[in-house]
């Protein structure tokens, strides 16, 4: 069955529905601009919806992100495409022509009522992406509690085609025959909010390279700290034990030339401090140690937050962690050198270790595809006017928001998104004001 290509026209195409893409879309749509928002994952919300709480306010991340996600999903001026990929964007005559591929969920969205019976019935258990492998999902599942849209996705790669889901679905909305569909968007401007990834844990063989069950990524710890996390508390993945000694290794993926990440990732100090504070709240008797080079608590209210953590008893040790090995019972052993003591290298054992991994761009222009904008030497998108107009890219009419232009925390990503929306709006005004020979 050949699906016909859907054709759309919009003022702005926004790529990526993390907090920056969501905010940029809202800032455009609320001005009356039409937006096509494309997200490659099955739900919008990006990394922020994956977090436990946010620094320095300690607001519940889910509680403050969900309303914004809902605003986007219900906005009359926003056309949302989830589970969709931008194949390519071409510029012609001041406008942009994009091709999207909408991947199948294998459910008919207009019939689904989000009741999760299919998920209950499915017998295939898989590692859950939202919980970063710590929890489980089924081969058909709603990605997470507050996912928007609230539709399940059938994982065709892992489905055993038993039909149990179709049998229990009250609306018969499961459709095993769905195919990818193509969408063509004609847009007046583009905003890239392609986001970041954590530096790969595998690139740090001296820290176990991801092989030790009790050495976690910071996002895994976010899930353990979340009130709806996979374990219902903070426990060790190796055996379910409540840890009594937890360590953070700072700059485990940043300020490190060997990784090709010479820059500071900006957020790691603060998320480590935040997690440490949350841990000392939920595990009052646990010792929490942060091994660091410099504490970079530079944002509004951040220094005070750092000082509070110190006052609460979180231990900050200026030390380089040379190596992590595994002792008996999967206990991580850190080889460190304390800079303040001068006592030489020593080995310390903790129950659980979090590597403060850094940020790298999720999409790099060098990878090709998407759109022909240029990257800077750090791999993030290049701005030709970094000081005055950081939202610009090297292509007029294409703007960047959030971590596409470098590591950023939530508030900076949100501010950034507003600036990108403003710049895109003004580009539309400019190009529409002088249409002769430009608009198709």
């Amino acid at each position, binding site marked *: 069955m050949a699906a016909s290509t859907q054709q759309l026209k919009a003022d702005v195409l926004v790529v990526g529905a993390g907090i920056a893409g969501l905010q940029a879309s809202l800032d455009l749509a609320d001005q009356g601009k039409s937006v096509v928002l494309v997200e490659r994952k099955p739900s919008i919300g990006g990394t922020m919806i994956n977090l436990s709480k946010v620094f320095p306010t300690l607001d519940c991340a889910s*509680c403050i992100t969900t309303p914004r996600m809902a605003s986007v999903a219900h906005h009359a001026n926003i056309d949302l495409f989830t589970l969709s990929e931008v194949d390519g964007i071409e510029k012609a005559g001041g406008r942009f022509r994009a091709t999207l591929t909408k991947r199948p969920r294998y459910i008919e969205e207009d019939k689904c009522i989000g009741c999760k019976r299919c998920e209950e019935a499915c017998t295939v258990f898989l590692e859950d992406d939202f919980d970063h492998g710590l929890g489980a999902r089924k081969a058909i599942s709603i990605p997470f509690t507050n996912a928007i849209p609230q539709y399940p996705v059938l994982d065709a790669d892992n489905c055993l085609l038993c039909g149990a889901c179709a049998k229990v679905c009250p609306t018969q909305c499961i459709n095993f025959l769905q195919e990818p569909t193509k969408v063509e968007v004609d847009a007046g401007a583009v905003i890239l909010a392609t986001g970041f990834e954590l530096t790969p844990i595998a690139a740090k063989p001296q820290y176990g390279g991801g092989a030790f069950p009790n050495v976690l990524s910071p996002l895994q710890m976010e899930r353990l700290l979340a009130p709806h996390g996979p374990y219902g508390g903070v426990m060790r993945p190796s055996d379910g034990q409540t840890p009594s000694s937890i360590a953070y290794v700072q700059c485990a993926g940043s300020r490190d030339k060997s990784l090709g990440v010479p820059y500071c990732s900006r957020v790691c100090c603060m998320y480590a401090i935040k997690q440490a504070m949350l841990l000392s709240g939920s595990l009052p008797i646990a010792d929490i140690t942060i091994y660091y080079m410099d504490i970079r608590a530079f944002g509004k209210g951040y220094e005070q937050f750092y000082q509070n953590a110190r006052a609460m008893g979180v231990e900050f040790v200026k030390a380089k962690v040379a190596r992590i090995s595994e002792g008996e019972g999967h206990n991580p052993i850190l080889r460190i050198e304390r800079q303040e003591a001068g006592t030489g290298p020593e080995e310390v054992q903790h129950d659980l270790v979090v590597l403060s991994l850094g940020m790298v761009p999720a999409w790099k222009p060098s990878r090709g595809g998407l759109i022909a904008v240029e990257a800077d030497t750090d791999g993030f998108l290049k701005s030709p006017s970094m000081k005055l107009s950081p939202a610009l890219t090297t292509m007029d009419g294409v703007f960047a928001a959030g971590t596409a232009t470098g590591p950023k925390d939530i508030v900076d990503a949100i501010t950034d998104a507003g600036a990108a929306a403003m710049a895109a709006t003004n580009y539309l005004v400019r190009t529409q004001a002088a249409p002769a020979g430009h608009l198709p």
Partner: protein
Amino acid sequence: MSPEDDLKILIITTMISSYPGANTVGQARLQYSPGTFIVRVPDPVMFPEEFYLDSFAKGIDGIIIMSSGSDCPYEGAYPRLSKRVGRVYARMKEQGIDTSRLKLTTICTVCKAAFLKEIREMQQNILKAKAA
């Protein structure tokens, strides 16, 4: 039917956090007693002291105010609410109503365990008060 189910517990939730929190409990299919009646409000700060006292008089056994706490979007609303609940307690004492039948707490959009705990504790409190 257990004695808990015969109780009528009024749960006042906020649009921004505890009402979606109650939905999260449902999405996870966690179970609690049907003697629970959830109403949503922009913010519980709007209820005068009489609302609580009248509700008890009408036959409501317990009231749990699930506020947004520090997530509250309204300026100064939470401190006002908590002061007012303090005054309600004082009047409950005067009228000989067991104060454990009213609880002010904070529930977030994903606070599943806390939500269930509040209901369980309220039921136990009421039954204890009734037995006494």
